[in-house]
């Protein structure tokens, strides 16, 4: 990968290599524009790479990602940098100077992807790709379909002895433990911020007791449990004791639509839950499922999807926000008030899933980068300045809407580069 490339006149910088950033970068490059694409993770694909399936088609995200990666590889107009973040931005529309920093992967381009280093490595690290549901070796690929297909070394997780063993195991001299962070500057005409979202921190809702029981997981963790390349190879088991849950509870709006947490609606969680009900049904055809909700936001063509699921006699929908979760010896009890009947509901379940919402990932750094954000931390798109936001950096959205927004952002960036 080239260290410094500043040709830049009229080039577009896309920050973030998730589905929005990838889409924006590809759409601009396929018009014929020069594009730089930077991604903070060691792989492209972002959040959607962590999803088992998309709603409502229940198709795997890696199918579309594979096409997008192929498009990236076939397009000489895109230059891609992983493990890279923006440090500072100066200049104005048409001539921005953006300083970026690439963190060391400790694995250089000699890496063939053979995996001998993994065999040699005995130290482990927490698997952040799987939201802590398991461990990986200290030298790892974030997931099997990760692109680019290069290993990453978590040097801090290794003993000196292990480091040496890893080094010795590589026939291609690809392990470089002395690698340092690199800073470089890009000259571009406009920037697309496609920095995406983080799951809202569930420990902030103290009443929901996340972290206090192994029977409480988040919806993103559920995606990993259901994924064939996840920590359980696609079995939905309760973390910790690997028990097959006999009952499930979904806690909707865990943080969203709540002025103490996220005042907006996170857009995707209702449909995500509907989709996850299908994951459960595939594996546990009879298990009772309880969904506690305020409104079921499954509009338009999603209504049909919901209708099918609501016909299931073992799936119960209760209009009422969960007020409390009580950890039990085996599972948890969900406490809520049924808004229609006024009854107080206490429902014991073996596994409960918090439908946590999305928080804009760039929220904390935005002002330092000169970006205008709204009260919730979403980046306000400013085409006049050539600072354009896309996807979930701009607003909470599903994948389709993010792709649309990213395609639109590509045009705004091209206009700014004229």
């Amino acid at each position, binding site marked *: 990968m080239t260290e410094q490339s500043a040709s830049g006149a009229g080039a577009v910088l896309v920050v973030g290599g998730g*589905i929005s950033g990838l889409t924006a970068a*590809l759409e601009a490059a*396929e*018009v*014929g524009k020069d594009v730089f694409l930077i991604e903070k993770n060691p792989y492209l694909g972002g959040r959607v790479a962590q999803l088992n399936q*998309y709603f409502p*088609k229940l*198709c*795997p*995200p*890696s*199918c*579309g*990602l*594979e*096409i*997008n990666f*192929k*498009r990236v590889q076939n*397009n000489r107009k895109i230059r891609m940098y992983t493990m890279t973040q923006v440090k500072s931005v100066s200049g104005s529309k048409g001539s921005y100077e953006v300083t970026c920093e690439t963190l060391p992967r400790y694995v250089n381009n*000699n890496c*063939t*992807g*053979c995996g001998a280093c993994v065999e040699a490595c005995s130290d482990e690290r927490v698997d952040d790709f799987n939201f802590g549901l398991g461990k990986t070796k200290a030298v790892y690929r974030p997931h*099997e*379909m990760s692109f680019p297909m290069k290993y990453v070394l978590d040097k801090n997780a290794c003993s000196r002895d292990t480091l040496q063993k890893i080094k010795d195991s590589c*026939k*291609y001299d690809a392990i470089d433990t002395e690698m340092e962070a690199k800073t470089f500057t890009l000259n571009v005409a406009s920037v697309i911020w496609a920095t995406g979202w983080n799951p809202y921190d569930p420990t902030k809702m103290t009443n929901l007791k996340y972290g206090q029981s192994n029977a409480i997981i988040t919806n993103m963790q559920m995606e990993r449990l259901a*994924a*064939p*390349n996840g920590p359980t190879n*696609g079995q939905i088991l309760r973390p910790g004791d690997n028990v097959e849950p006999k009952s499930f509870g979904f806690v909707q709006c865990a943080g969203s639509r709540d002025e103490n947490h996220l*005042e*907006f*609606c996170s857009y995707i969680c209702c449909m995500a839950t509907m989709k996850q009900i299908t994951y459960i049904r595939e594996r546990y055809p009879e298990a009772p499922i309880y969904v506690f909700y305020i*409104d*079921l*936001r*499954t*509009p*338009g*063509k999603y*209504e049909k999807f919901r209708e099918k699921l609501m016909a299931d006699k073992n799936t119960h929908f209760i209009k009422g926000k969960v007020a409390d979760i009580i950890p039990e010896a085996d599972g948890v009890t969900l406490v809520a008030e049924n808004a*229609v009947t*006024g009854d107080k509901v206490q429902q014991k379940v073996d596994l409960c899933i918090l439908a946590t919402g999305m928080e804009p990932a760039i929220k904390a750094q935005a002002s330092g980068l000169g970006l205008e954000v*709204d*009260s*919730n931390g979403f980046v*306000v798109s400013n085409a006049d300045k050539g600072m354009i936001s896309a996807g979930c950096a701009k607003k*909470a959205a599903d*994948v389709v*809407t993010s*792709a*649309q927004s*990213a*395609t*639109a952002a*590509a*045009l*705004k960036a091209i206009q700014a580069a004229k």
Partner: protein
Amino acid sequence: MDKKYGAYICTGCGIGEALDVEALISAASGSGMKPKTHEALCGAAGRKLIEDDIANDGVNVVVVCACSPRVMQDAFNFGDDKITIRGNIREQAAWCKEQPSDKKDEDTIKEYYTELAQDYVRMACVQAKKTDMPEPFKLETMTKKILVMGGGIAGLTAAKEAAKAGYEVTIVEKSGVLGGKALGWTKQFPSKAPYANLEEPTIGALVAEVESDAKISVKKSTEVARIGGAPGNFSVTFKTPGTKTEWDAPAKVGVDDQDRIAKGQMEDPNAGMQNYMAQNPDAEKYGAVILATGWVPADVSGYEHLGYGTSDKVVTNAEFEKMVKDGKIGGIKSVAFVQSPGGEEHDMDFPYCNSVTSMVALKQAKYVRDANSDAKAYILYQHMRTPGNAEMFYKGIQQDDGIFLTKASVTKVEASDSGCVVHAKDTLLGEDLDLDVDLVVLAAGMEPTTKYENSINLAYRQGPAFLDLDLFDGYSDSHFICFPYETRRTGIYTCGGVRKAMTMEETVDDATGAALKAIQAMECADRGVAVHPRSGDQTYPEFFFQRCTQCKRCTEECPFGALDDDEKGTPQPNPTRCRRCGTCMGACPERIIGFKNYNIDMIGSMIKAIEVPDDDEDKLRILALVCENDAYPALDMAAMRKHPLNSLIRFIPVRCLGSVNMAWVKDALSAGMDGAILLGCKYGDDYQCHFVKGSEIADKRMANIGETLSSLGLEKERCAMEQIAITDYDKVPQILEDFVQSIIDLGPSPFKGF
């Protein structure tokens, strides 16, 4: 191009240990190539070995037998004037070996997988010989001007944004004014933080901006009669709305229909019209088209219990908006907004609502309150749909104590002396409701114009409208989640109400994206390359017309309507409409369609390159033709996850199963191979095929070939098709194992050795 070959075998990543490298080298001898080996071809030294041969010996076709073609593309890219062919001996030979067992010891396994890899080396060498350098297709005349159909928010925005990027645009609008539905709105939804207040309409400013833009021309009171041609060179005939002309878009007349018309059994629906291939000398040229003809309010008279049509106190949201605009709500003291028609039956919104009508009800409740501070608004919903930032507007509305919001199952609306009574159950008030109101507003949906009209009026062999409209409730959508703009008509993109019920904010984004796609389609046509999903591909199907029998299969089966035909039925290709899937090539019984780097002869020769032992009952040979987008990566992934892949199978990636010509399967079986399997994407309503129809078509063709086989005395079970998702890596080895076992049970092919 004078081809000079260089072949290379990588022995790294365990290949050298797992396989007999000398045997691999000798496998290339039939092609006259003598591969060089290296322990890491992708590394600097390995690449230098190749680069030196390029520099010193003039090698321009590089055969790399190493890892999967899915990886290391950069490392093996030696420039646009070189051809690189990849043989996958890492993932699909060295890495997918089975474990030693009682049946097979280590040496036997090595022998089997070496034979497998030898076939891959042979195939790669043959492929190199049969691959030619692509030459991009260039249109004789190229127009980079965009036609936008529809002058509402979507169309105006698309035009404005395309013009801002430097492109010329024409807007064609049926009515006498620009602005569309938005002209009737009193206020707009909030568009920026804190999302608290309704905003003044911006449509006037948008219309003025478009009308003063020198790059945009506007044709009012005009509609499109027909669109012929292809991206970069569309030929558009306009007409006065509502008139019939000889240049109207002809209805689709299929092969069977043509017969019946000829025999006088059917009336020609296109009588009096110009043939769809006819060129109108007065037509205007465009490079791409954006369809933004919007939506129409849904008819709600079918919901008898809601009283629409029987009481004039029951109106739709669209009618209420007009009452407000006309200043006719001054005397109204109470309004009930009914969001869901299902009563106690179901809790869905009216069809075609999406989340827009929830927002509309909130906005209109505000109108009621603003017109009269004593007035009350009741919003009766099953699920309030205010996704994203709209939630903050909803929350603000809840603070207004003159607006009552409750979940409710509205069971009946009855006329009363002063207005209406609304009966509702399951409310949040703990009791049933009987609301006396002056007016009831029903949250009617927004139906796409594509539900009722052809809209795009194409003069194409496959007919004037978008396909699969029924599958998507009348919306023009190919419904790819990842690629929402793709339609099955290249160079024609849609936005706004024809795609889904959307708010103005969503429409602006959508229209801007559609403008980008239109520009991209023109630029790609200009460069002579494909658009999504084979973006940048310079090849295109070429036809050897002397042998065409006018069977029309290619014309009918192309998922993208790229082929027209002449009076005799000879296909007339439109390369800029083509998406390069090769479905035409797969369809052609005469085998006269092919690409420079992907054709019948090439894959056929690769199959012939597979050595079929004719005297060893243990060494059966099975051909697998595999979708390169999904099933092939799943195989690679299976190998990475250390699942063995059966060594009797030879995998060949194909662009799409639609491109699989049954001649390949027949040839393989007549050459003594024992079975053939196709691995492609899921099809049906939730299809995953990137070319929409490929795997479905292949399944049909494969079923037909089964019949042919039985007539030859071969069991039809020797041919199969399986739907494989890219994530089926843990399942696909067993699926293949089962197929191999079924072939073993059938025994070796009786054609072996002939």
